[in-house]
């Protein structure tokens, strides 16, 4: 895992420290950190990480706002970087909101080392197509074809391959 650079963002210092230690045990050697979304902007631009793991709730700029910025700002060094969002929320509606903001994976806290490893490997091995639309910019939210679905097309227009 030493070839990948990871950016971890959390305003809770003990949690940030724990994440760095866990990633270190996973074999990541290039780990950069930030304490909120605003600081993370600068680190992201300078370090160009391969993977971002961020908390949702943080002061100043939160995880969703940071994700929105990465995906939509023309200055972003990597709009399609995989983003794993950590949150204590587990309600469906909240998770849906996170996905609509363009996060790649959601990791509900508290989690185990296995949960985190699974998310990271999923991002590595099952990358999702990236959708660019006026209202949405992020990984395709349709993970698998739903053969049982018999309703109409929920998308206003099918995306064209770029």
């Amino acid at each position, binding site marked *: *895992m030493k*070839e*990948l650079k990871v950016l971890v963002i959390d305003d*809770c210092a*003990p*949690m940030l*420290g*724990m994440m760095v*230690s*866990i990633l270190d*045990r*996973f*074999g990541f050697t290039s780990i950069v950190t930030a304490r909120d979304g605003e600081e993370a*902007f*600068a680190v992201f*631009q300078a370090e160009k990480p*391969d*993977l971002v793991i961020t908390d*949702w*709730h943080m002061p100043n*700029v939160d995880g969703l*706002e940071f994700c929105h*910025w990465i*995906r*939509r*700002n023309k*200055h972003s060094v990597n709009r*399609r970087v995989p983003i794993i969002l*950590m*949150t*204590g*929320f587990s*309600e469906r509606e909240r998770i849906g909101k996170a996905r609509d903001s363009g996060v790649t994976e959601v990791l*509900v*806290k*508290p989690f*185990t*080392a*296995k949960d985190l*490893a699974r998310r990271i*490997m999923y*991002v*590595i*091995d099952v*990358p*999702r*197509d*990236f*959708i*660019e*639309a*006026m209202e949405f910019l992020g990984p*395709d939210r349709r993970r698998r074809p739903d053969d049982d679905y018999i309703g109409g097309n929920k*998308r206003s*227009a*099918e*995306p*064209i*391959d*770029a």
Partner: protein
Amino acid sequence: MLDKEFHLREEDDQLYIYKLYGLTKPRKIKAEKTLRIKIGANAEISAKQIEKAQEIIDRATVDFTPFANEMIGDIENRTAYIQSLTYGREEEYEALLIPFIQLKGQAAMFGNRFVSELSQVVLSFLEKYRRLDDTSLEIVGAYCKSVRLSYEKEITTLELNNARVLYSEVQYAIKRYEDRFKG
């Protein structure tokens, strides 16, 4: 430092580009296994590495009490403020939830499953009703007392008798609220 342009959060380049060029169709960019190529075909996080990482969680020595006290203080202050409002209480709802989320998510990561589980119970209740009336704020108050007491008495799991008492008190209060709501 970043230049000023980066901080214009309301700026939405994507919308601007779409409007500028009159684009209507979304674009799909095919996924590539960029990260897998970087790390090589056989690289993985091994079971041994996961086990070692889990030890960090299981043996976390960081004292989470100051952080928990700060969060509880935040909840108590917000609750007091909300109680002083005669209207517009629901506008404070999202802000009130944040410390609950933090406690639910992080207490268990630092050895206190009791606080995580109790936070989940109250969080589910608040998310279900989304009401900040006096009774629901009393439940929030009971929760704060239980969390403070749990750190004071070093109650970390639900298996302990006094933990179950604290937990049940909050659960009964929620049950009473729900019964009244149904009636």
